[in-house]
Each structure stands twice: as structure tokens, then as C-alpha cells.
């Protein structure tokens, strides 16, 4: 690796790192109750000078929420990156391909089913349901992708699958009990509110393990990027690699949907911006950078979602779409321009 590249990667990672710390702190400080940094330090170090309410807000609401956004945002960007690599399509992502919606449908069905029977729904149940739903949608997308060669048709099919799943979800929600609806409605539009430490623990465990496994795949992923023939010639077992990508990307997407509902565009926008920042597609750098980038992007968007119209909260997808959709348009415009060269 030559010098220039080393510096570029180093700068990029420093930028992402400091950016992450910066938005994380903003997320903790800003809200209906503003908490100054010195107060946070005091509370963190256990000095009881601060008011009880402030301590509660910080520990029970803002910290777990920011932590959840950090974890899930990273997971979402990584899921997007994996799908883009898999389909060799820069605008593939869990939301666009209908995988989030499939997961959402499964979670809604399971929640209503369990709530009717007065069974408490645990985080693990939600993740399992979402994972099953994600794999189901992914299966459909894969079947379609075999039949149609064109990438744009694949994306359109994904969007259609998304619509079907959302329609089923809406239908189910309409027939649910009043009390459940409020819960389901917020969640099905996508929101990071109401995260507890218990949630954070579960998602941290699942996401950490998955990201670690994905990172172990960085060498075969790099070969896969060259094209099937050359990956096979390099000795990569394509079948296993493909299965790995499908499972891990579904798992990551499932995690986000289970806890925050479907969140749009982060999976496309964050990896793309990170790629531009790094100037490479090497998975060994892209995997950690995507995670950081997704975290920063989501923390920033969640901050806006909470504060723009406070005390009313916007759905997270509203904000991510505003910043993410233009990136998609930019990619498509550039792709078209490249072809004309």
C-alpha cells in the first residue's frame, strides 16, 4: 500500500471517529431538557450534584437511545454494503429490496399474535421474527434476480415486494386491538424512541457478533468484487460466500427492524459516502468505515428527528430520506454519465 493511500485511510477513519464522538455527545446534550457537558461528566463520574430528573433523562432515555442509534445505524449501513456487493449494484439496500418490509411484516404478525395471548414479547422474539421475515423477502428477491438479469428490474421488484409486505402489515395493524395499535403504528414507521438498556444489550450482542463474522469475510468479499469467474479462479467458494452474505445481511437488517422499524436510505447513502471518503472498495477498510459512517449518519438524522419539531418527533425515515434519497439520485446520475463516456 503506498503512502498517499495510508494517509487517506488514516484521515478518513479519524474524521469518522471524531464525527461519531461529536454527534454522539450532541445527541446526549440536546433535547427538550438541555444538559451541559460538565453536568454529564458529573453524572457519569457519579457525583450527585445534578438533579435527579436530569440523571434519569440521561441514563434512562438519552444514553440508551444514542447507543442504540449508534449500533443500529452501523448495522444498517453494513447490511446495505453487503447487499450492494452481493448484487453488484450501488443502489441495493435492505429497504429498497423489500427486505426491511418483509422483516417488518413478520414482526407485526408475531407481535399481534403474542399480544393477543398476553405473552410478553422479548427482544429475542422480535429479532427472530424479523430475521425470518428478512430471509423470506431475500428469498423472493434472489428467485427474481435469477430470472431477470437486469438490475433495475431487480430494484423495482424489491420495491414491489416492499409494498406488498407493507400492505399486509397495515392490514394486520388495522385489525389489531386499540392498545397495540399505538405501539405498532409508531414502530412500523420507524423510530428510535423508547430504547431500553435491555434492548441495547441484546442488539449490541447480536450486531457485534455479526459484524465480526462479516469482517472475517473481507478477503473473499474482495475477490467476489472482481466478478464470479475471477473469484472462483482465486479459490473462493462462491456458494458459501453467497450464503454468508445473505445470512449476515438479513441478520443485520432484522436487528434494525426489530428494534427501530424500517429505516430508509441509510443502507445506500452511508456506504456510498464512505466509499467516496476512502477512495477504495476494499472490504477490509470499507466494513469498519461503513459501520462508523452509518452510525454518524443515523445519529445525525435522529438528532434532527427529535429536535426539529420538538416536542413532536418525526419518524426517522422522514429525515434519513431527506438526506439519503439525493445521494441515490446522485449515484444514478453518475452511473448514467459513466456509461456515456
Amino acid at each position: 500500500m503506498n503512502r498517499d493511500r495510508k494517509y487517506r485511510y488514516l484521515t478518513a477513519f479519524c474524521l469518522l471517529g471524531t464525527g461519531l464522538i461529536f454527534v454522539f455527545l450532541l445527541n446526549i446534550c440536546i433535547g427538550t431538557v438541555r444538559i451541559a457537558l460538565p453536568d454529564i461528566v458529573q453524572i457519569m463520574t457519579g457525583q450527585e450534584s445534578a438533579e435527579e430528573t436530569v440523571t434519569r433523562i440521561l441514563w434512562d432515555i438519552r444514553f440508551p437511545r444514542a447507543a442504540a442509534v449508534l449500533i443500529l445505524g452501523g448495522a444498517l449501513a453494513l447490511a446495505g454494503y453487503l447487499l450492494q456487493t452481493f448484487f453488484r449494484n450501488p443502489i441495493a439496500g435492505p429497504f429498497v429490496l423489500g427486505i426491511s418490509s418483509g422483516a417488518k411484516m413478520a414482526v407485526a404478525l408475531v407481535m399481534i399474535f403474542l399480544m393477543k395471548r398476553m405473552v410478553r414479547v422479548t427482544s429475542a422474539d422480535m429479532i427472530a421474527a424479523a430475521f425470518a421475515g428478512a430471509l423470506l423477502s431475500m428469498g423472493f428477491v434472489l428467485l427474481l434476480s435469477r430470472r431477470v438479469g437486469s438490475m433495475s428490474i431487480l430494484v423495482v421488484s424489491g420495491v414491489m415486494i416492499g409494498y406488498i409486505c407493507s400492505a399486509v402489515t397495515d392490514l394486520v395493524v388495522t385489525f389489531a386491538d386499540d392498545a397495540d395499535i399505538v405501539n405498532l403504528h409508531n414502530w412500523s414507521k420507524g423510530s428510535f424512541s423508547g430504547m431500553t438498556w435491555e434492548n441495547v444489550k441484546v442488539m449490541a450482542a447480536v450486531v457485534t457478533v455479526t459484524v465480526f463474522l462479516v469482517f472475517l469475510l473481507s478477503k473473499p468479499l474482495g475477490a467476489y468484487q472482481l466478478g464470479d469467474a475471477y473469484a472462483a479462479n482465486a479459490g473462493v467458494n462462491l456458494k458459501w460466500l453467497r450464503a454468508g452474505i445473505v445470512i449476515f445481511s438479513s441478520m443485520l437488517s432484522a436487528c434494525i427492524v426489530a428494534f427501530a422499524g424500517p429505516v430508509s436510505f441509510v443502507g445506500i447513502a452511508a456506504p456510498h459516502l464512505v466509499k467516496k471518503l476512502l477512495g477504495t472498495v476494499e472490504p477490509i477498510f470499507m466494513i469498519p468505515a461503513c459501520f462508523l459512517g452509518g452510525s454518524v449518519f443515523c445519529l445525525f438524522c435522529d438528532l434532527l428527528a427529535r429536535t426539529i419539531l420538538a416536542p413532536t418527533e418525526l419518524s426517522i425515515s422522514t429525515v434519513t430520506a431527506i438526506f439519503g434519497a439525493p445521494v441515490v439520485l446522485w449515484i444514478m446520475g453518475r452511473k448514467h454519465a459513466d456509461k456515456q463516456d
Partner: protein
Amino acid sequence: MGTDREVYYFATKKMCVGYGEKPLIKDVEIALEKGKIVSLIGPNGAGKSTVLKSIAGQLKLLGGAVYLGKTDMADMKGNTLAKKMSVVFTQKVRAELKTCRDVVATGRYPYTGWFGVLSKEDGRIVDEVMELAHITDIGGQDFQKISDGQKQRVMLARALCQEPEIIVLDEPTSYLDIRYKLEFLSILDEMRKKKGLTVIMSLHELELAKLISDKILCLKGEYIERYGTPEEIFEADFIRKLYGIEDGIFAEDERFQAYIRQVGSYGEGNYGSGDDVRRW
């Protein structure tokens, strides 16, 4: 037939190839000593690429076997095979945000560790191969922005970087101008002389196939039409038949007739005898 395998480095036995269930070409028998070059010729759509893909292990054989040395290729693990055989296909590598040197370096993949980090030794081999392929000066350029001819040389360097014993190439010279065609083939010639590289490739240019190959495999229809030395293949009306140039076609035009005669015969044209030609 077991003795054959001791003599020949590369051999196919009753190999049947094709997509799906139905074999496209049956009973392909190739036998090749180490350091020899075999060219596949035949009309468009005859299945040259299919045969090459099957040999490279990328298309499941519908019957028969391919042997490298004494080993059935089907019994080789991905990484083992990768260190023995490399490929240059008509489809280029996808190389987003990669320099030419990066693309060449991907050939070192089977030799790197778990995370694919290149060692100093890997870097040295990459540089050496780039020198050999005359692409040192474009090493820093974006692979997607160079010409097709340059890309083809980068692809060759990538394949050689894999330090293969045998290399499979699908129409490697198609996009190259005459100078680079010759240069490309001279690199292969040099490698087989120096390192005993065995070469299997398809060629559209009959003149080139004639002058560089030790053996020529002619594909047409369901079975191998013919397999032999250039002297045996380029004789009388065989090329005419192989490519379906019937008597009626171009019959009136003496220029075309002369061209066909020249290409389709051995030792007649401007090239002199085969041995002279190999010294270029």
C-alpha cells in the same frame, strides 16, 4: 490409458461440456505435455468458451474428467487449484476504484493470509510481472480508464502473478492491435520457455494459432472435429470446411480466395516454415 497421465501434464478424458443437462460437446480428449501451447479454433458459437470454462473448473463437467499431472481436478481444493491454474476470460475484472497495479495484485490472492494483506515478496512478484507485461508505466492509472488493449495486458499480468503452472485464456488477443497481439503471445512464449508454463487458449486469428501453437483443437458440432499439430490441421481444405466456407462463397473473388488459401495452409504463406516463425 494410465500411462498417458505420466507423460502428459494436462489431459482431459472423455470430457463432456455444456450448460444444464444436455452436453454441447462430447468426448473432448486433449493431452498436453508441460510447457506446450494448445489453441482452440473453430467458428463463432462452436463452444470454445464453454470448453475453456469447463477446463478451468467453472462449469460443471457433464461427464469425463480433467487431469492436472496425475490428479483429477475435481478433487482439488479451490486454493490448491488457484495456485496451479489461472484464467484470462473475455469478461474483464470489475475494478471500481482500483489502479492497474491493484488489479494485478489481486492475482496474489491465493498466497495471502486470512485478511489478504500483501507481503513484500508479493509486491516484488507483482512488480516483476508488470515489468514482463510492459505495464509498469500505467501501474498507477485507474483500471477503468485505460484502453482495452492495456486492460488485456493487465489481465495477463494478473493471471501470471498467480504463478500458475497452466493458464487458460479465452480469445486473449481479440482487442489488441497487431503489435500487441505479437507482444502478448511472445510473453506467453517466454513464460513457457522459462518456467514451463502450459497454455490453453482460444484464438480467432488462425495465422497466430498456426505460428505459436504446439497443438490445435478444432471445434465444430457435437464432437471434436480434429486435434493435432498445426502441420496436420492446416492442410488442404480443412480450414475451409471447419469454418463452413463452401466452394460457392467468394468463389469469384480471387483476393479472398488467395487469403483463404494462405490462412488455411501450413508453411505456404508469408510465414515460412513453423520453426522459423517461432523465433520471432
